[in-house]
């Protein structure tokens, strides 16, 4: 699958190559298609999915699980491109990455990895060579963070998102599930696709709810109501970090430091 395999067995080179390819494709068609306001947004997002994200995520099914930092790199690249498509690059207050992904109805890279790996697993155990299947089990026995270990977490995600709970997905022994995959005639693909859509919808619901709560507390805080503990410090609550030198605000302290270094020359 044209995967860059490096001697340190990490995915950094592969991810960097994929991001470079996707960004290059994005830049090629950006002006004529993706940020062309004469085209409807849904069409531009479809083109983005098929022309850019397909290159970014092409061999993703065969990846072992990347680290949080690598997932963050992928997410930052996708969000950077989506901000240009949605034209929210300079919006105030700044829109979070999760919000941008929900607005564009694009899966988070980790959820996308789960989707791609579940689809690839079905193809692998259906059509793949025997030595590859055996090697996967051997790797699972020898390595803590093997491909199969990641697949089990993906199956757990699918079980959580799916409409009907399926105990088959949580079994320690994958034999029955592999049998299902080998007898499958397309239902698994539809099931995973539906789960991905449900995931996007559920995340959108939760973000909307959290947004409402943040706005409620914002209204009260603006009129000097105080709470203990401060709702702004709650997990997943919107918390902005204002720049002391100008009117801009950022979602992370790192964002403030980067902005001050670039805009105000403060190190």
């Amino acid at each position, binding site marked *: 699958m044209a995967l860059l395999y490096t001697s340190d067995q990490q995915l950094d080179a592969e991810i960097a190559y994929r991001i470079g390819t996707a960004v290059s494709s994005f830049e090629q068609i950006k002006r004529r298609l993706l940020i062309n306001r004469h085209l409807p947004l849904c069409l531009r997002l479809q083109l983005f999915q098929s022309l850019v994200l397909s290159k970014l995520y092409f061999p993703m099914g065969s990846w072992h699980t990347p680290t949080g930092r690598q997932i963050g790199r992928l997410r930052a690249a996708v969000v950077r491109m989506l901000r240009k498509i949605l034209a929210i690059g300079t919006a105030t207050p700044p829109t979070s990455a999760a919000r941008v992904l929900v607005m564009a109805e694009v899966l988070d890279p980790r959820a996308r990895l789960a989707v791609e790996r579940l689809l690839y697993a079905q193809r692998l155990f259906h059509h793949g060579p025997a030595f590859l299947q055996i090697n996967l089990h051997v790797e699972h026995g020898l390595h803590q963070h093997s491909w199969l270990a990641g697949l089990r977490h993906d199956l757990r995600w699918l079980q959580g998102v799916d409409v009907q709970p399926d105990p088959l997905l949580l079994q320690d022994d994958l034999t029955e599930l592999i049998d299902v995959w080998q007898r499958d005639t397309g239902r698994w693909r539809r099931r995973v696709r539906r789960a991905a859509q449900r995931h996007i919808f559920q995340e959108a619901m939760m973000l909307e709810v959290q947004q409402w709560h943040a706005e409620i507390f914002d209204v009260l805080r603006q009129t000097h*109501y105080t709470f203990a503990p401060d*709702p702004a410090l709650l997990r997943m609550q919107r918390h902005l970090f204002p720049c002391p030198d100008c009117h801009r605000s950022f979602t992370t302290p790192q964002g403030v430091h980067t902005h001050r270094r670039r805009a105000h020359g403060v190190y």
Partner: protein
Amino acid sequence: MPRDGSPNPCFAYLQSIGYAVSYAHEALPAVMRGQSRLDALPVAGPYGCGLTACQRQKAELQRQKQALEQIYNDFEQPDDYANAGARLGDLLTAVSQRWYDDYCAPGRHHSEADRLQDRWIDVIGRLPQEFESWALRTFILWGRFILPDLIAGLLDGEMEYHFDNEYAEFVFQFDEYQIGERITQLAHRLRLLDAPAPLPEAHRPVRPPQCNAQPRSVPMQSVPRLFDEQEDWQTELLRVQWQDMPPDPMIPLVQGLEPRPCFVIVHLFSGRRREHDIHHWLAAWSSRTNIALTIISMDAAISPVLGNLDVRSESWSTLRSLYLQGKSRPQSLATRARRFHRLDGTRHHPSLRMGSGRGRSALLCSFLASITSRFARRKMKQTKTGSAFFLQTLWTLACHLAYGGLTVRRRAPRTTTTRTPPFGVEKRSFSSLSPAPRHHLA
């Protein structure tokens, strides 16, 4: 078909000679029905591809080995080949020792004309011609097993090297030696192929994840879902308590709407305008008591555009700006916002029973994954819309707390519903935090 698009000469020739074949239907196998073309490509190659590369290599090596063994074993030997071989070995040892003595006699000097190889050739050449191959094999064996002992007894480093070198040069010219070595190599390669393949190992040790690694440097195995994490989020939200509150703002009169200042009353989710509804009653009451009121009844049943309370609608944006400017003070809520509350199953969740004796939510948001995660998509859409209305109501209530005003809930008759209306949830939500803002609720 040629690339330039010209007619296919092969096909034209076959047609000209009248060659014809029967029709053959080609289709995907049944097991691959429903798959895309990419998926239908068998990764292991076409079906029935024959032996693997390893098996083919093994067969080739065995064929070569058998052919060489056939050549190698084709020789004649004496009847009593063991004794004959021993005698030949003794002769070779004797001529080698004699050559060494000749070398030592003139003061450890040897001439190029009298080489050790010549002595060995003299011995081997005296044997009959048909036993030449046997004699060479015997000489090779003698060199491997007897000559090292002979060399060890020379006590002369230069001669030890010379004997070895002479033997190597001499033996390398024999076909028997070359064939024997080739057979040995083939046997070794066959043994390697027969042995089980060793487990793959990295050419450098795999660095295990550090025990004190940061979360972002270890594989992100679990898929993060806000939907799964909302119980924790709500638990944290429940810990929030009122700490400090400013003095209650008064209910101001809005300037400029009427010839004289007036109160603005917003009737959210009012439903279709009816005779003797609350709008009508308030208007009659204001004219009777000479109090200026501006009443805004908002519902999609009144106007799909101006009464739309969807979050993304223009009417809600305008109303929101009015709230944030502090112009909309008294407010009446109809029971439309209880749509979300109609969802069954809330009483089955422990966190929804917190602080409520009737099995209802005491949370600011009664939105829980455990009860909605298995909903069908249509029902989830209803839930999303209903929860948005519910939280809009809470937001307006927060605006009244911040900028002053009253919130009046128009309670439906008991006979029409058996469920707890949503405003009870709102009231509990705020009043459970502190008794102070309760006077904003009526």
